[in-house]
């Protein structure tokens, strides 16, 4: 099956969950809170409208897209993207635990190794200098501390 049809079906399923489970839950919360004596339009109006639009247009994509076609474009190099997204996920997971500096040094080092960067001294320079530079600019110029390094 074509990737755009799969995407439309996934969005359709997500919209069904959204409209069937999540939106009624908001309605129940609102009933519990009450709205006072004046007439007002409830907080579920827009979610119902937006969810309905997703359903309609996802069905339109399914209906207007051919069932089969070359899958080359979507799957080409997907492993590389999954790998990179995985490294970013691990970085995001570790950042509040061990701090921005060590995790970003690790992030760059892993990416350069995994994707086989050719010139080692550029990799070393970037890996060591860029995280420190970013941290110092944000800390000193914009007064924003990134998560601290618990290990150092």
């Amino acid at each position: 099956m074509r990737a755009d049809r799969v995407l439309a079906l996934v969005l359709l399923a997500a919209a069904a969950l959204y409209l069937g489970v999540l939106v009624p839950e908001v309605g129940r919360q609102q009933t519990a809170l009450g709205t006072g004596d004046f007439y007002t339009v409830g907080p579920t109006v827009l979610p119902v409208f937006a969810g309905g639009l997703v359903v309609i247009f996802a069905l339109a994509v399914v209906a207007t897209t051919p069932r089969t076609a070359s899958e080359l474009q979507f799957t080409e190099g997907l492993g590389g993207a999954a790998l990179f997204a995985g490294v970013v996920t691990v970085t995001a997971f570790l950042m509040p635990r061990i701090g921005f500096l060590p995790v970003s040094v690790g992030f760059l080092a892993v990416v350069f190794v995994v994707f086989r960067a050719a010139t080692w001294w550029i990799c070393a320079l970037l890996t060591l200098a860029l995280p420190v530079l970013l941290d110092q600019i944000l800390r000193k110029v914009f007064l924003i501390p990134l998560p601290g390094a618990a290990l150092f």
Partner: protein
Amino acid sequence: MDPFTQALFAFGEPAVFITLICATGIGLIIGAIPGLSVNIAVALAVPLTIFMPTDQSLVLLIGLYGSGIFGGSVSAILLNAPGTPASAATIFDGYPMAQQGLATKALRVSLIASLYGAVFSVILLVLVAPELANFALRFGPVEIASLLLFTFFVIGILSGASLAKGLLSAAVGMVLATIGSDPMLGTPRFTFGQTSLMDGLSYVPLLVGLFALAEILDESTRGFSQSIQKFSLDSEDRERNRVSFRDLKFISLPVIRASAIGSAIGILPGIGATIASFLAYGDAKRASGDGSSFGKGDVRGVAASESANNAVVGATFIPTLALGIPGDAVTAILLGALVLQGVTPGPLIFISNPQVVYTIYLSLLFATLLMAVIGYFAIRPLAMTLRIPKIYLMPSVALICIAGAYVARNNMIDVWIMLGAGVLGFVFNRTNVPVAPLLITFIITKPFEEALRQALTRSEGSFMPFLTNPVSLTLTALVAVAFALTLRRDLKRRHAVPNQKEE
């Protein structure tokens, strides 16, 4: 001091002036590097603007936007690969010119045309935006809700190759915007008990993910290129690369027509600079009579494409400033940045914050002039940036994305939002679902909901005010026409594909 003088004097402040120079220079570089678009440059700059005064933040974002579009022509001409999608049509004649040893001439023509297009659209912005805003001041909640819903449909219909996919993207943006407290009663919606989601999905990580991380993920599928691009400007004949008066006369008419086309496209929400440059290129080819020289290194092709895409820049600010409706993805980002600064774009901005309006006018103008100066004298060093291999560039930008997403609210949830948005943007790009409608709709949904619910509360739930209002009826008719035309185009295309296969 009147607001114009106040805005003008702000440019005399060292911090603002230095920001303008840096933004224009960085915009040129980022625009020139294939894979790093203007959207990425502006998206990565937004987290920094949170901590800047309004005038400085506007100068930063507009400087990047204005110069980034021209920067895209550098790699289009030298490498046959556009730095930004908006420069794709420049390849047709720019690259053949470079192969004939006329790369510098092509870059200079591109610069002159960009300058003309940008100034043309800024003049149009100054003339049209206040008038449009004046008209829009009469709007009540019914008209505002209708106008924003009209934007939703127009963006969805016009921004993608497929009608259904554009509208699907816009609808997803609307769903994402419903996360957070309801704007009228404060009821939490889809927050799953997370206090950090009470304000809704944060806009900064969303746009960094959708535009920057998605592009990096796409590059990672090609394993991040390690090759150093090869080109040389040293062996060029300086005399042949001089732009003569005859050349200027030759390109003048295509440039004027292209600037008008670019400005007209820029005013319409959701279409953008890429389509404008292709339309202007096609128009220049048709208007030339004998179009045989186009595609083989005709200066008019380069001039038309570049003046059109730069004319879009100023024109996109017309709906953004006057109506609070972003003209394209970058103005959507700028609109969000203005909201972060506590300034609400829309017709009232001309009354409540005239200084901000003048700062935008002047930023566009000064960034354009500075782009011309830097672009003229620094074409060769600028071209050198194309030699940076992506294996070093992209992971570094990814790290900036992570830090940028975090600093917006000092909250790790924003890094996860950025990651989710990046994956979503990547999947959308790969399935040819346009990303811009999602972001634009995400931004306009909150004012749409406020206006809709105000209108419905006033009418006690009745939709009659929408069905009897001349503005909403006119907009509905326009959407119906746009919908019908696009549907016809899609159906024609679907029929054409099987016919081609049979042949």
